[in-house]
Structures are given as C-alpha cells and as structure tokens.
C-alpha cells in the first residue's frame, strides 16, 4: 500500500460536475427503462447535483446526510418501481453520498502516491471502472437467467409479481418439468453418456499425440500438429457438414456390414465426432505442459530398467497430469456444450442437452431452458471448484507450492 497522502477539500468546480456525471449515468438507465434516456440523464444529474450541494453547503454533517440521502433515494425508487426499486434506490443513495464526500474531501487521493498527476489519478480510477464494467458485462447475462428460471409463468418475462417479490410470482415448476419430462431427461442422459466417453478418447489420443509431437526426431511434426488442431480453427459448421457425410457412410457400413444396431451406431458417430473436436484442446494443453518436462527423467527411468510404458505411467504422467486434466476439462465442456455437430451427425435418439435447449428456444420459449441453464451453471462451478481443490491438495501432498 502506498504511503498515506495528505488530502485536502476539492473545489466545487471539480466536485459538482463529476457527481453530476455519475448521477446522469444512473439517470440514463432509469430513463431508458421509462422511455426517455435523455430526460433521465438531465433529471438524474440535476437531482444528484442538488443533493450534493445540499450536503456540503447546508447540512455539513456527514452521518446525517448519509441517512437523508439513503431515505430520499429509497423514496424515489419506491415511487418509480415499487419495493425492488426502493432497495436499489437505497443502495444508490448510499453510493452517491459516499461518492460526493469521496470527491469533496479529496479522499480519492488518500491511497495513491503523492506525486501522481491528476491525469494519472483519473486513469487509475478509470482503469478500475473499465475492469468493473467488463466484469459486469460478462457476468450479468448469466445472473439474469437465474431468477427468471423461478418464474411461475411460461415466458421469459420478469412479471410484476416477481418484481414485487410476491411468492405467487415464483415457482419451481420449471425444475420439476426438467426432472420429470422425458425429453429433457433423455437428452440429459445422452449428454452424460456422450461427453465422458468422448473426453476419455480425446484425452488418450490427444496426450499420446502431444508426447509424440514433442519428440524432436518426428518428421514433419509442425505440419502434423497443424492438421491435428485444425478442427479448432475450421468453422464448426464446415466440420459439421463434412462429418455428416463422412460419418453417414461409416454408419451405413457399420449397420449394413457389421450388423450393429442403429441406435448404437448413432452414439458411436456422435462420440467420435466430439472426440475429434476435443483432441486439439488436449494437444495444446499437454504440449504446453511438456515444455517444462525434463527429458532426462525418462532416460533415468530407462537406465533403471523401466520399459517405456512403465516410464510413461509412473514418471511422465504424474508430472504432466495438470495439463492432461485441464485438457480433459476443455474436451468435456466442448462435447457437453456442442450443438452444431450433434445436430448434423446425431439422430433424435442421440439428442443432447444443448440440442434440446436449442430446439426448445426456437419452438417453445420455455423457462425450463433457464432452469437447465441454472443447474448447469451450478454444476460447472462445483466441477471447477472440485478440480482446483484436488489440484491444490495433491500439490500440498507432494510438497509443492500452489501456483
């Protein structure tokens, strides 16, 4: 932390326009929701500026003006949009009060180095605002669907009941639909069959390929590498079209000549197609890990009489495991999220979860999709947390520092 910088009160010519700009930004959002963005900016800026002037010139008491600010914005919020808006309003009131004093007292310089120029200070905070905005834009679309999945209506709509926090506006029926509806259950099961098998295939083949390609004596290894990771680069729809025709012939041969059942062949086709899509991720992550792998270890193992297979499983594999696991995770997510290839290659018996969500979105905008999305978000977070915890644990056990 930087040295404590002495602070001083700032002139009104700096404080009021800055506060007005912040007020205008909030006014823009409220105004757009109520059909006039421009009016919102003007009113928001005016209200906030007036309040800031009131705190500084008339009240001169930070504690008291804080509560007044919260109350005023709470009332404004309630007037505009009921209880939820009142809560947001109270937060906004607290924020604007804090912001006004932060500017007025010059507290924004407190934690910065004393010799920074004003433009450096501006950039310091501007940078943080930009980062915050990026975070908000990344995460809001995910958060928005979660309350909607508890909607008691069959539409993607925040109903007035939901906004009033009326329990009648909420329901678990879309979750019930997911757990009882055959179509959703079958596609969920299909995803759970296809994704792990495809992952195992991609991880095995991808790891072997990465190890092979990292040997310096392999001829044309750059060209081979380029071909192997091409499924990641070629637009998916083109791979999918090609795969459709390629796997159709393979499927016909397996059904006709080998006499396998249509259903089983369908799964084989989708699993193989997904494995192909997952292999590039495994190759790339494992190759990256292999860069840090000391080759003299394999020679040492060979020197002690271990055959290559033992060397691989006992020496090399444990060391490159983090790369293999993260490659496997990518391969799993690729298959679990994939909709284009399965639409082409699969038939309806292999309908996966993303496929079901896709047709669901197009044909029957049903919040069951949002319930599924919420469940998947929770599963993904749990999965990543578990993997990370396991990784740290194994590193602790092996006496390495986490990193």
């Amino acid at each position, binding site marked *: 932390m930087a040295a404590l910088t002495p602070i001083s009160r700032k002139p009104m010519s700096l404080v009021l326009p800055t506060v007005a700009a912040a007020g205008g930004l909030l006014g823009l959002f409220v105004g757009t929701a109520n059909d006039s963005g421009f009016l919102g900016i003007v009113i928001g800026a005016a209200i906030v500026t007036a309040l800031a002037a009131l705190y500084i010139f008339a009240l001169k008491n930070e504690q008291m003006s804080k509560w007044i600010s919260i109350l005023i914005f709470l009332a404004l919020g309630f007037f505009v949009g009921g209880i939820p808006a009142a809560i947001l309003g109270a937060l906004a009131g607290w924020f604007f009060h804090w912001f006004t004093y932060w500017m007025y007292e010059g507290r924004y310089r407190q934690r910065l180095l004393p010799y920074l120029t004003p433009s450096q200070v501006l950039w310091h905070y501007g940078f943080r605002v930009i980062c915050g905005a990026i975070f908000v834009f990344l995460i809001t679309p995910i958060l928005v669907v979660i309350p909607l999945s508890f909607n008691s209506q069959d539409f993607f709509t925040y109903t007035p009941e939901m906004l009033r926090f009326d329990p009648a506006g909420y329901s678990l029926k879309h979750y019930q639909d997911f757990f009882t509806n055959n179509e959703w259950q079958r596609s969920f099961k299909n995803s759970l069959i296809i994704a792990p098998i495809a992952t195992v295939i991609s991880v095995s083949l991808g790891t072997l390929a990465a190890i092979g390609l990292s040997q310096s004596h392999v001829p044309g290894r750059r060209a081979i590498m380029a071909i192997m990771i091409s499924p990641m680069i070629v637009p998916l729809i083109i791979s999918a079209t090609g795969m*459709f025709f390629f796997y*159709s012939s393979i499927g016909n041969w397996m059904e006709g000549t080998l006499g*396998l059942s249509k*259903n089983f062949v369908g799964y084989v086709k989708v699993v193989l197609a997904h494995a192909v899509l997952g292999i590039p991720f495994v190759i790339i992550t494992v190759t990256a890990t292999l860069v840090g792998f000391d080759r003299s270890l394999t020679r040492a193992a060979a020197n002690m009489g271990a055959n290559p297979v033992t060397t691989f499983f006992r020496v090399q594999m444990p060391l490159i495991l983090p790369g293999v696991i993260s490659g496997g995770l990518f391969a799993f997510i690729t298959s679990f999220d994939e909709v284009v290839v399965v639409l082409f290659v699969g038939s309806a*018996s292999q309908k996966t979860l993303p496929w079901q969500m896709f047709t669901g979105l197009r*044909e*029957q*905008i049903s919040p069951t999709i949002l319930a599924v999305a919420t469940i998947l978000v929770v599963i993904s977070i749990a999965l990543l947390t578990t993997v990370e915890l396991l990784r740290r644990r194994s590193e602790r056990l092996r006496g390495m520092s986490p990193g």
Partner: protein
Amino acid sequence: MKFTKLTALAVTTALVAPAAIAQEMTIVSWGGAYTKSQKNAYHDPYSAKSGVTIINDDSSAEAVAKLRAMNEAGNVTWDVVDVVAADAIRLCDEGLAMEIDPDTMLAPAPDGTSAADDFGDLLVSDCFIPQIVYSTTFGYRTDLVGDTAPTSVCAVFDTDAYPGKRSLEKRPINNMEWALICDGVAKDDVYDVLATPEGQDKALAKLDTIKDDVIWWSAGADTPQLLADGEIVMGSTYNGRLFSVIEEQKQPVAMLWDAQVFDLDGWIIPAGLSDERKKQALDYIMFATDTQRLADQAKWISYGPARASSAPLVGKHAELGIDMAPHMPTDPNNAQNTFLYNYEFWADYRDDIDGKFQAWLAK
C-alpha cells in the same frame, strides 16, 4: 489374460445389448404445444397399442433441407415427418417423400366413406396426408389497444390508432396479401395484383409505412413471448399458439380472426426407407390419421381436424374443460373473413417475391 477376456465380454455385451431394445420410430414435428398434442393424441396411444417407442425430433422447420442431405448421404433417420402442405408438395416433386394411396393406406371414416372423400380437397399432394387446418392470424394485447379493440386486420397498418410495435413473420407470405387488402385491393384480386411487379411494389410500399414498428419473427413461439412481455401491441402467429397464450397462460390477449389465412399441415413418409421401417411408418399413419385420432388432437390444441368426419367429434379441452369448437379457425364465427393460402401462386412466385422482400428488409 483374464483382463482381456473380460474386456472382450464387456465389448460384446455393449454391442449386442442395444439391438435387443424394442423397436423405435423417429417422428419429426414442430415442437412445443403442437408436439405435445400429437404425443397425447397419437404417440402415446400408438405406443401402448404396438409397443413401439416414439422419439420426437423437433426439426420440421428445416425438414426439406435435412431430408435432402439425408437422402444424398443415403442415411435417412426419420420415419414420419410433419410438414406444411407447401413443403410436402416440394418434397413430393423432388422424390424425397413416398407417394400415398389413400384408399389402401389410410383408414376409411367410421360410416364407410373412403379416406379420399373424407379428406376431400385437402389432399393437395400425392405424398401428403393432411392432419390439421391451422390459420395464421393476429393476436393483440387487450390492455394496450385503448378503448376500441381492433376488428379488422388493417389495424396492423394503422399506427395512429394503435401505436406500438407489431410482429410479423420474416417472409413475404401472408404479409404481402394483408398489405394489399389494407391498401384497398379486393380480396378476390389479391393474387392477380401480386403477380405483377407493380403489385409487389405496392404491397411492399404499404409494408414500408409500418416497417419501423415491426419486429420480425421466425419461430412460432416468438409472438407469444413478445405479447406476454407487452413488447408488442399485436402480432401474427399460428392460431394454436395464441389459444395457448390466452386460455392456458391467461395472458391479456385476444384474437383478431379477421383475414386469417388457412393452411394445412400433415404427414409425409420419407422416400428410401427399408421395407421394415416403411411398414412401421404406414402402420403408424393408418392409426394416427383415423377419424377419432384427428378429433382427439383437437382436445389439446385449437387446430381443426382435416377429416370432415372428425369435426362433429371435437369436444372439450382435455385439461381446461372448455369447448374447443369456438376456438377452431374453421368455426363460422371466426371464419367470417378468411383467406386460403394459394399453393400454386406461391409455388410459382415464391423465389421472385422472396428475393424482393429480403432486399426490401435489408434496405
């Protein structure tokens, strides 16, 4: 060695086991409430009767393209496909659908009338087995139209009396006809006018007056969602979707039946099925298109059955218990001013008008 044997055993079991699963059929349809109505009226009773597992594939929207690709790859995975009549005509012309003989492949009416007579004029193609009569019509938000509810389709073009967004399908069909009617063209002359380049420009000029207020939809579920959001004041979609919004979801929406456009939807069987699968598909069709089954579907969705003999059997909604007849597009009260989709006209002019329409949209 033991390990290898075990693996071999496991692999063999995995290969053989799926073959033992009971017979399956893939039926392609439109999804949503429509697939649900078919499941309740046709699929479930058929499965109970025959033991066949039915898999729903909601891909009817791209049925023509996918059937072409499947046929080229020699890998047709669909057994029965639900398509609109226009698609059935195209598929039949291209040889992608099997020809149906109504006398031997479809069940006669209970009173002995042959299937050909029972379906009558609705058998618009040799490959097509009609299932329902549906209409594309408008629904409006009752709380957004003010004191005078719209009674004419021309309310769509009247942004002064009914301000707000409206939704129209992102294709020329129906929109061009409505535009001409509201531009003063007599209903009987619409297709004559639309056949001329001037007439097409006239229709686009009329649509141009509301272009800024239109949200274009491409899936049948879009308009119901937009109406429920209150994002539009009125919008076109299939009448069954509006029924579901009004009666099942209890949204403040009402029907504007004026100038509704009738169209047909029904089954085709893809060409190139193995004999065994063809027999299965025909068995299903024989069952699912008999008089009682078509009437049963109307218990679940407000589309009119295509057989004349099914109409008197239409009863109450299976869950809501309301009479379904007043919600049918063919009900005399709703059918005071209707329009029959002109297959021949659109078969001849579709490519031309589509091109013009898309160019106009992009402007």
